[in-house]
């Protein structure tokens, strides 16, 4: 079957090493930036950054930002913006607290109700944006004011907490170690007979197994897609490069998993996040729904004339955004273990910054889910690292602002050159 396609392969030749490096630098440039930033702060903090407990913390601190960044990516690719997500997250967190603490509603039921509430809020805003054609900037600015106000109103100045233990697990829990702990180097015991922290290596083996499985699945799909490309006669990157790239990625994943395993295992919230990221990558890269969002962001009029229901699509994007903002609100309040009147304030800016650092275009039509996730981690690691270094919060803000500007400027400069 490949006899027909063979000549075209010969004509265009295999992609050269140089092309492959160039292509991948563009694709994995952000990963590289994240690694460099992590190494830098690792060095500046004498390795504190890489302590298992701290890496776990980085994930917990940024989980709600990343959850919202997934939705925000769709919103921004579609050519819109959502300024209300912080206020919505805060408001939904408060509603969850009142349901569970004041009314004793079952945490699972309360969680589902709250996500539905977020979807409804997103739907209302989406209605005004999609069908009434009011600019999203204005609608969601209004939404931000409204839900900030409602948050104050429902809490009437108090903080509500603590949450039932089951709910706290969302942010404070770790996956159970069904296999059992795996002692590699026995820790030194102190006088009381308890293990001394920082000595010995005891691993959360379920986490390690999951890590290995993830790497295996990743490699399988990478190989399968390479095979499929080759069998159809399209260029694949040089094999050496392919192997190196995947080994490095696998190494990074295993390294992080090892770190988690040597603390308390995978945080629950990381599992939730990982699943969501997987779903969003799939939807944006492989599904018609995602394709239509990119088309609409690139040229709304042309998309409309190609039979895409742009209004309905916009509406759905805001419903999804609302649901994710609600989920983020739940994670946020579970982490604090209470709902406060200041919850969620200013989060929208971190979320939007993450998406732009991740390479999305403010004009719409351009942006990647993984970009937004890595963008969020870049900002998160910087926060964390600067915090450990004891840099004042005022300078932290300045530096983060400059990084955002620099990242986008660098991105534009690269595109111009290409």
């Amino acid at each position: 079957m490949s006899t027909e396609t063979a000549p075209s392969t010969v004509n265009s030749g295999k992609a050269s090493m140089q092309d492959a490096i160039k292509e991948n630098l563009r694709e994995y440039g952000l990963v590289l930036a994240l690694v460099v930033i992590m190494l830098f702060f690792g060095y500046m903090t004498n390795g504190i950054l890489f302590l298992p407990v701290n890496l776990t913390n980085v994930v917990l601190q940024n989980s709600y930002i990343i959850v919202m960044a997934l939705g925000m990516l769709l919103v921004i690719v579609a050519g819109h913006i959502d300024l209300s997500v912080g206020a919505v997250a805060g408001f939904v967190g408060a509603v969850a607290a009142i349901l569970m603490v004041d009314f004793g509603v079952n945490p699972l039921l309360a969680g589902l109700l709250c996500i539905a509430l977020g979807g409804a809020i997103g739907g209302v805003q989406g209605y005004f944006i999609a069908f009434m054609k009011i600019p999203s900037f204005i609608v969601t600015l209004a939404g931000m004011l409204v839900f900030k106000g409602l948050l104050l109103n429902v809490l009437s100045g108090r903080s509500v907490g603590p949450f039932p233990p089951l709910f706290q697990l969302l942010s404070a829990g770790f996956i159970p170690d069904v296999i059992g702990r795996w002692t590699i180097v026995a820790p030194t015991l102190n006088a009381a007979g308890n293990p001394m922290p920082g000595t010995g290596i005891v691993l959360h083996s379920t986490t390690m197994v999951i890590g290995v499985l993830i790497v295996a699945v990743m490699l399988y799909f990478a190989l399968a897609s390479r095979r499929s490309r080759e069998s159809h006669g399209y260029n694949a990157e040089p094999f050496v490069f392919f192997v190196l790239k995947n080994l490095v990625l696998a190494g990074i994943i295993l390294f992080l998993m090892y770190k988690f395993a040597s603390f308390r295992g995978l945080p629950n919230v990381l599992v939730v996040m990982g699943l969501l990221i997987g779903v969003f990558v799939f939807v944006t890269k492989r599904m018609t729904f995602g394709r239509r969002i990119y088309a609409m962001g690139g040229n709304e009029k042309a998309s409309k004339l190609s039979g895409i229901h742009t209004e309905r699509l916009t509406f759905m994007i805001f419903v999804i955004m609302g649901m994710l903002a609600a989920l983020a609100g739940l994670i946020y309040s579970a982490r604090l273990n209470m709902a406060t009147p200041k919850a969620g304030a200013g989060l929208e800016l971190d979320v939007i910054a993450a998406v732009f650092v991740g390479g999305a275009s403010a004009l719409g039509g351009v942006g990647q889910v993984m970009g937004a996730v890595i963008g969020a981690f870049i900002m998160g690691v910087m926060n964390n690292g600067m915090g450990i270094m004891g840099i004042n919060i005022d300078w932290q803000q300045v530096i983060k602002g400059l990084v955002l500007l620099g990242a986008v400027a660098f991105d534009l400069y690269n595109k111009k050159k290409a």
Partner: protein
Amino acid sequence: MNDTILEMRGITKTFPGVKALQDVNLDVRAGEILAVVGENGAGKSTLMKVLSGVYPFGDYSGEIRYFGQENRFSGIHDSERVGIVIIHQELALVPLLSIAENIFLGNEQARFGVIDWNLVRTKAAALLRKVGLREDPDTLVTNIGTGKQQLVEIAKALAKDVKLLILDEPTASLSEKDSEALLNLLLEFKAQGMSCILISHKLNEVKKVADRVTVIRDGRTIETMDKDAITEDRIITSMVGRSLEDRYPARTPKIGETIFEVKNWVVHHPIHPERQIIKGINLNVRKGEVVGIAGLMGAGRTEFAMSVFGRSYGTGISGEVYLHGKPADTSTVGRAIDAGLAYATEDRKTYGLNLIDHIKHNVTLAHLQGVSRSGVIDDMAEVKVANDYRRRTNIRSSSVYQITGNLSGGNQQKVVLSKWLFSKPDVLILDEPTRGIDVGAKYEIYGIINQLADEGKGVLVISSEMPELLGICDRIYVLNEGRIVGELGREEASQEKIMRAIVRGEERAVQ
């Protein structure tokens, strides 16, 4: 030779990987109109960008001598200062500013940053008189038609004390009447001693106004001919590098039963619903038939097509659409596509393509279900479809992953056509399918149209170029002021009869 005002010698300009211009020579004499013609992608626009300083000195090699002096422009400001002004194909006017404000945009009549509005109005009025535009200088540009906007652009150029005016496809979006007026204006300027470079695809225009024609092909100057040597055939031969025996490929029509029919179609204006734009149109297309819609700009051709295709234009729409003799629901674009209708827009950049995405994604956009299952896209199937259509419509690109915004007009049009071919329609409405594209690409597109008809599809072609309609259509409807004012078979149709139908229609409207 001392009346030569501009000499470009040995201009070479390379982009990464491509030689856009190679040793191009061009000269312009005082008080002449020089036409520059060439296929899209031949390098005309690049050459003009070199001349006007968009590509600064050092970006290209070669020499530009202007009034005997070598010029090294570092930006568009430098070229404008010495009186070289370029008017781009896409007008650079700010729609929500007044005519006067637009004329002096970037050239404000101000002292210490404070604008002298009286001076602005007086000067603007004088300039408008010069270009023959009777409009109040305070009118917003958005409120005047494209033809008049073109005149505002020229007035803007005059305000800069222009000595050499460059016009890039100035009549591409003008009606015949407006084009005529514009060309006469150029002749008038010429009589006053201004020089002009005219880039055009319309060979009849070139023949009418140009003193000399320079032909560019594949980034090289092919030849420059003097006025008495200019013939359309010779221009075409040098442009495409081969002689085109016939500009329209031959076809033996095999016409079957009626496949598409519109009855009593009425459409009202979207903003002023009391205004009727389409006033009861009846028409039909048969299997294997190419049917044309002729008419002047503003006759309602595009409005008709878009209102039929998913009510994409207008309000208060009434009438029936039949496909294969059965009533068809075309009330949304999605339903119209499902019913077997396709509409390729006249404005590919605004309504046709996602210019920031590549060919592959554009080709499948109107029929994603054709490459997906339960909402999941099969990447390999999509690549295959894109490659098939790229080959079938002969899109010239490095691969299907080339960004459509970087393609030439003709190739962009082929991507639009591919998109609609892939949606597997029974009836295609092609709105100005060859606007702004070169002779070679036009021929290819006519070939595609013929092939579609041979496959038994119905094709409805809207075009402002009457020779084109006469060349490819089996039957032509003449549309004027929202009404069908004539229907002509292939044998009887002629430019004269079409114009007569339009004029008669206008007379009837006056009575």
